[in-house]
């Protein structure tokens, strides 16, 4: 517990000092939400829809923070610690690798949640955002999307042999996910063919789930998304632990 407290406090301070995660994980999703809000206001999502464009996009905004922290922030930090041999130094202490990873997970999680809360407040105040779905279901889906995206990130961090590869892998996965999963460019405005291609990305499934639960759509349409996300979380977590290296 003592080790957890000290590591958590220290890593949190460092992440605030470094500003990478606060900028990309917290501020960036808010900026996207504000832009979409300014452009679409509280217009209905489509002709005759009983929810607004903002209502529909809220789930996507939530996913941007998850993506930035899970696919860039966390894996790059772990790869950097390995590259700098900071992990090697921890290896000759009694600390467990699981604790080190858990601390990073928690810090990124907190940043993402801060971003989500701010987006919720901003959208509610300026564009009358109301969550029509059950908040409990939304939070559960939010947690599931976090687990699956973070596990992909941790797997990248474990698999990448050096900093360069880690950078490349994260960029290769982060940007397509950001632009082609509906996180920034709304899924709904894409042509049908493109939507089918987008469905391959795990985050597309995550955003479907977040949108569905926040709008209160029937859950049976989301079962496939749930199954995909749970499988990704399991497989990637196992792989990231299996391939974890101190050095």
């Amino acid at each position, binding site marked *: 517990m*003592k*080790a957890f*407290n*000290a*590591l958590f406090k*220290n890593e949190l*301070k*460092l992440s605030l*000092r*470094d500003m990478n995660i606060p900028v990309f994980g917290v501020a960036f999703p808010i900026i996207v939400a504000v832009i979409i809000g300014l452009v679409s206001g509280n217009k209905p999502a489509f002709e005759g829809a009983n929810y607004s464009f903002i209502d529909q996009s809220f789930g996507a905004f939530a996913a941007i923070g998850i993506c930035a922290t899970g696919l860039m922030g966390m894996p790059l930090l772990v790869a950097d*610690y390995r590259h*700098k*041999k*900071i992990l*090697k*130094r*921890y*290896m*000759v*202490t*009694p*600390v*467990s690798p699981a604790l080190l990873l858990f601390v990073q997970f928690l810090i990124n999680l907190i940043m993402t949640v801060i971003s989500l809360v701010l987006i919720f407040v901003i959208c509610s105040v300026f564009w009358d955002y109301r969550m029509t779905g059950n908040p409990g279901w939304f939070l559960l889906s939010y947690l599931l999307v976090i687990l699956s995206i973070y596990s992909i990130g941790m797997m990248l961090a474990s698999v990448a042999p050096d900093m360069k590869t880690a950078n490349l892998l994260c960029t290769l996965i982060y940007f397509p996910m950001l632009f082609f999963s509906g996180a920034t460019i709304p899924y709904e405005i894409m042509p049908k063919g493109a939507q089918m291609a987008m469905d391959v990305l795990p985050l597309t499934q995550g955003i479907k789930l977040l949108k569905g639960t926040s709008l209160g759509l029937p859950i049976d349409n989301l079962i496939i998304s749930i199954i995909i996300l749970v499988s990704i979380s399991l497989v990637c977590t196992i792989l990231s632990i299996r391939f974890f290296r*101190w*050095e």
Partner: protein
Amino acid sequence: MGKPLVVRGLQKSYSDVKVVDGLDLEVDQGEIFGLLGHNGAGKTTSIECILGVRKHDAGSVELLGMNPVAERKRLFERVGVQFQQTNYHDKIRVSEICEVTESLYKAPADWRELLKSFGLSGMEKRTVSELSGGERQRLSVMLALIPKPEFVFLDELTTGLDSKARRNVWKYLERLKSGGLTVFLTSHYMDEVEALCDRISILKKGQIVITGTVEELISQSPHDNLEEAYLWYSGEEENE
């Protein structure tokens, strides 16, 4: 109780090159043991294999009666390590790295006292990257002592230190030694080795060429001082 460190037939190759070639050594309780050799002789790789940081190809290591890989957590509660090149988190402060290190152990030493002993008090608020090379080196030795170890590994402990700082580090180690600490060090400074080490081994191309006290090493060589004897054993003279 057996010897705190027993290494038998340790081997390690990188691709085809044998870096450690059948290393055998024993370190006695409470002694300061020095592993000497040129750059590339295999000192650091030997230490890393002993600590389990690197997988060895063959041989066995018993440190404080434990297997460093299988019993990592229990072992490093009692063993301190200073690696040759230590990097730290970006922008981390001296006090922060000390607090984090302290938090990892059940019964750590008081790091403020240690900072004082290593001439680093007053630098708590500085970031590690702002420290001079010598200050950073002292910090990394000092961090290895935070666990209140029974056994400490110091890889090039005083590289980059001025004479006064080196003597302070020696004095401090002597004091810990009289309290029962066992030390395994590497160094390129023969005055340091003479001042500190009870026994030394000289490593050449991954093999130990001789082990003994400073006096024994000198008397078994054609020379009358350690520097010359060391060069003779480690084969430097062939190049001249």
